[in-house]
């Protein structure tokens, strides 16, 4: 998922919000009655995707190359800003006006399209086109698979969440980066004594807090703890491992592990990154998409070699595999089941010829990302950020489990409840037991 600049979230959410009342809710009610063919008009295949650098230009580049090579089967691209897109695509699909190619995040959102019968099952097509499937990271297919069937083509880049740290801060207190959870807890008072916040956190954004729980759950109980939630097992959040993870989380908060006032800080404004590169915080757990921002805004912080990175360390007594990671295993392209046969053909041709073509792969690497194509590590070597990109590649490729972010994996209904309860857990206004009880109530929704 792309999570960046302030304008995207605020202004467009507002555009949506302004109509959030009676009027918009009612407008939608006339939606699902219409079941005309896929949007974009007669014949032309439509593709909606997100704006914002660097992705927009790269996506457009692939469309342009495809259109040049195939004058008869044109793809018409329309771009949207992130949050506007989230609402727009939902409304369009609900109204039977979806574009032929639906860009998405997979997981719970994709499942809601599948449940409504709005996207095509691509399992058979991938069976016939094994070459397309086999060149992509196998881990990227998890979030595209619902009930054993593949409903989306994985695309673009892999974005695991990693532990960033400031080498200068560790030099100052003469310490080494943490190798375990106990190390983390031991570092907290040392950094606080040196007037450096141990961890930066944009707590108001809520999903930022969630990343911590994702790793703690995995390291303490393994991927199966959250898998049980995902599979809808009764009372899955009350698993003792889950309670232990939630308790350790609150222990870190109570020990002042996070920067003071973290609940006032948002990730949208990149203030959490700023805390790290200005030396006010020593560490930050965040997606690899923040690397570019820190490089651009942090002066010589990144270029001067001060930024360190590592996978989240193991927790003492935990049973999870320390190679596991979590984040965005890819982005996803689905085909609208309302599209015409020709449109679907064109879309599949686009998937085969243009998506993650050699030119696109190179463009993603040049932009500082790791595309989900096997063997792309050989192309990383010569780039300016080779060291970091290699780390991202290794982390992603070697992960025993590459879990999708919880809020993406769950249904939108459960995800909203989850983020709500995580925010309250971090406020210390609910206990781990209350959290588990609240969340057990929405399991399977």
């Amino acid at each position, binding site marked *: 998922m792309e999570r960046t600049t302030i304008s995207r979230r*605020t202004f467009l959410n507002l555009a949506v919000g302004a109509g959030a009342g*009676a009027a918009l809710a*009612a407008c939608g009610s006339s939606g699902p009655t219409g079941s005309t063919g896929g949007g974009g008009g007669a014949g032309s295949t439509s593709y909606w995707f997100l704006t914002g650098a660097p992705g927009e230009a790269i996506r457009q580049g692939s469309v342009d190359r495809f259109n040049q090579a195939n004058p008869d089967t044109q793809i018409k691209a329309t771009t949207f800003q992130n949050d506007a897109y989230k609402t727009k695509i939902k409304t369009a699909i609900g109204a039977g006006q979806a574009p032929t190619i639906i860009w998405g995040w997979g997981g719970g959102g994709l499942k809601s399209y599948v449940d409504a019968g709005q996207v095509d099952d691509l399992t058979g097509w991938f069976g016939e086109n094994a070459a397309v499937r086999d060149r992509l990271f196998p881990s990227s297919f998890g979030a595209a698979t619902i009930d054993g069937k593949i409903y989306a083509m994985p695309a673009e880049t892999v974005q695991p969440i990693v532990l960033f740290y400031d080498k200068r801060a560790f030099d100052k207190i003469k310490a080494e980066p943490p190798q375990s959870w106990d190390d983390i807890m031991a570092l907290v008072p040392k950094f606080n004594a040196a007037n450096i916040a141990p961890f930066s956190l944009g707590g108001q954004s809520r999903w930022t807090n969630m990343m911590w729980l994702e790793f703690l759950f995995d390291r303490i109980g393994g991927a199966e703890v959250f898998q049980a939630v995902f599979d809808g097992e009764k009372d899955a959040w009350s698993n003792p491992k889950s309670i232990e993870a939630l308790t350790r989380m609150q222990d870190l908060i109570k020990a002042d592990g996070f920067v003071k006032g973290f609940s*006032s800080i948002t990730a949208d404004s990149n*203030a959490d990154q700023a805390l790290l590169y200005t030396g006010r915080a020593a560490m930050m757990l965040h997606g690899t998409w923040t690397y570019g921002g820190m490089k651009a805004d942090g002066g010589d912080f990144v270029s001067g070699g001060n930024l360190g990175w590592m996978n989240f360390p193991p927790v003492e007594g935990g049973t999870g595999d320390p190679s596991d990671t979590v984040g965005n295993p890819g982005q996803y392209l689905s085909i609208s089941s309302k599209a015409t046969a020709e449109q679907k053909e064109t879309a599949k041709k686009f998937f085969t010829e243009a998506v993650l073509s050699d030119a696109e792969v190179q463009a993603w690497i040049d932009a500082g990302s790791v595309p989900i194509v096997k063997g792309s590590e050989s192309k990383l070597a010569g780039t300016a950020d080779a060291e970091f990109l290699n780390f991202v590649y290794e982390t992603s490729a070697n992960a025993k489990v590459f879990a999708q972010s919880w809020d993406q994996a769950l249904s939108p*209904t459960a995800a909203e409840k989850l983020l709500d309860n995580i925010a309250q857990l971090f406020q210390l206004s609910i206990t781990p037991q209350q959290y588990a009880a609240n969340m057990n109530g929405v399991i399977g929704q």
Partner: protein
Amino acid sequence: MTAFAPPAGPRASSDPASRGRSGAVGWLAVPALVAFVAFGVVPLIGVLALSFTTWDSIGAIRPTGFDSWRAVLTDPGLPHALWVTFEVMALSWLVQTPISLLIGVFLAGRHRYRELLAVLYFIPLLLSAAAIAITYKALLDPNFGLGAGLGVPLLVQDWLGRPGLAMGVIVFVVSWQWIPFHSLIYQSGARQIPRAMYEAAELDGAGRVRQFLSITLPQLKYTIITSSTLMVVGSLTFFDLIFVLTEGGPGDATRVLALDMYKRGFQANLMGPASGIAVILVLVGLALALLLRRLGGRDQSASQLEGM
């Protein structure tokens, strides 16, 4: 949303002359009526209908009777959201009314410098709520905001991260934005008060404070009611500001009804319950508007200039 105050229909009059005229005048109401029905009543009926369904905004709409209402009414989040909404309403009314009343009366005086001040005071009203919220958010940032920049420890607080402080910030920003508007209302109200009343009071030896309490305040009674209605009913629709400033946080400390509705409908894909909340919002808004009209006395057309 909740701005559907009942249209003030002309009271049926027994005067034959005015009855004859209202036939022609009635046609003039048609454009407004059409707009009101198309953009007010019809969506409202749609929302009411949706509140008896289950819909995730993607799949089919399934009628499910009272399921959504049961979900809304048994959710502990609803009384909390109602309480937060009431808090914002009451606090922002308490802060705004006295200040805008005083500023309004002050600006009613006809001096050059007061007119200049009036223009300056008016500026916050020209800004969009989103822009204001983004600006304040940046100013209040505990690490990079105003307090940290100026090195004033008192201003370095977890402004949006503590429930009480976050509520205070919202009330402050709301007041900062809307006081100019209400001052304007009071200014025009105060200018309508006949000077003769003050001259008579001066002859009787009444001081400035006495004049304010005995003449200005009673004469502004209906202005106060108008301004309060706008404040109270308007506070039900505070969405943009709170959404950008706190997103309802920390936790759910500033989650007002309008925000709760949005989150349920558009983020959690629960259109049924969200419509239920929309209906509740409309009902609360209507009830408040009616109540405030009652407070203003039964006959609003009665003269404010009794004894003149």
